């Protein structure tokens, strides 16, 4: 798993790639919470993620709740089929805001 962050205005974009399992999900959690603790809105780009287990999903859920507590926006970008099916199984596809691109996410938040 690899992660990169960069900022675009009031948004931090966290780009994850590879497989997210319980070995690496603590790092995902840390990166998600760190971005939000800086007071930035957070977009988590999952377009490079081929697999995510439930510890990774749990880290995203915690991040989203954290963002709501701080009145920051949080969304997932580029969710692929494999990850989407896991989100659907747990009905979290109805919970997370999801967009195809940074532009679509920021436009929706204006």
């Amino acid at each position, binding site marked *: 798993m690899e992660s990169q962050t960069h900022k675009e205005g009031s948004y931090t974009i966290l780009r994850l790639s590879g497989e997210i399992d319980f070995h690496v999900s603590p790092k995902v959690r840390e990166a998600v919470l760190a971005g939000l603790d800086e007071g930035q809105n957070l977009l988590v780009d999952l377009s490079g993620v081929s697999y995510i287990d439930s510890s990774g999903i749990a880290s995203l859920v915690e991040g989203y709740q954290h963002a709501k507590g701080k009145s920051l926006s949080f969304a997932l970008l580029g969710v692929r089929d494999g990850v989407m*099916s896991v989100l*659907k*199984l747990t009905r979290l596809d109805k919970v997370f805001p999801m967009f195809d691109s940074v532009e679509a996410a920021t436009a929706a938040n204006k």
Partner: protein
Amino acid sequence: MTQATSGNAVIEVENLVVGYGDRTVLNGITLSVDSGEIRVIMGGSGSGKTTLLRSLLGLKEIASGSIHLLGKKFHYGYPKHMSEVRRQMGVAFQGGALFGSMTVGENIRLPLREHTRLDENTMRIMTRIKLELVNLAGFEDLMPSELSGGMVKRAALARSIILDPKLLFFDEPSAGLDPVTSAELDELILRVRGATRTTIVVVTHELDSALKIADRITVLGKGEVLMTGTVEEIRNSDDSRIQDMLHRRPREEDQDPEDYLRRLTAKRH
């Protein structure tokens, strides 16, 4: 009959022989289960299906033959090098096997505590995700004794999938459940496989459930594989023992009068 040669197999059993004392219960079982498959193992009482499950889980020592799970040769009793394989396996036992002294939530979290060092928040959310999945949201703080039979089974399923196993074993999911609850559990098994591609082995004697969920069914009889096939192949089999099972006919066993007399009168078995 399926031979254990597929490169995609996550379970490969070859010529498995298992017994209790002098009595052979499994007499040369060979089967393989492909990745992502739902395999139902069926058979009546005494067919050896429970012994096969116990052998696959490392709870019963084998006499000869071999078992490979997730590409690793399996050894009885889970020596240390099997711990990674074990982590990737989930088991939901017939009776639930929940610890009565722990809440439902703690029971479900147990494998996380044993195998991971995840943050408490992560573990709590994972537990609740699985509880939602099995329709037990809000039951986290109850004790197992406060749950109905169907709820105990669902809690056991939640615990068995808490680590997102690659291989899930399910022992008699329908036993003791009413038809509606049983059908819900079947749906759940199908949904879990659909979303996670988990390989699932279900041991059952419930025909309706088997026909609904199986990709392939292995029918055991007297410790041997009578047939492995798709639901359609099983239905069309001309083996009288398979047809007896499908039509719930009592077994008409060949009776050897001399053998029968000997069994009744022998001083020792």
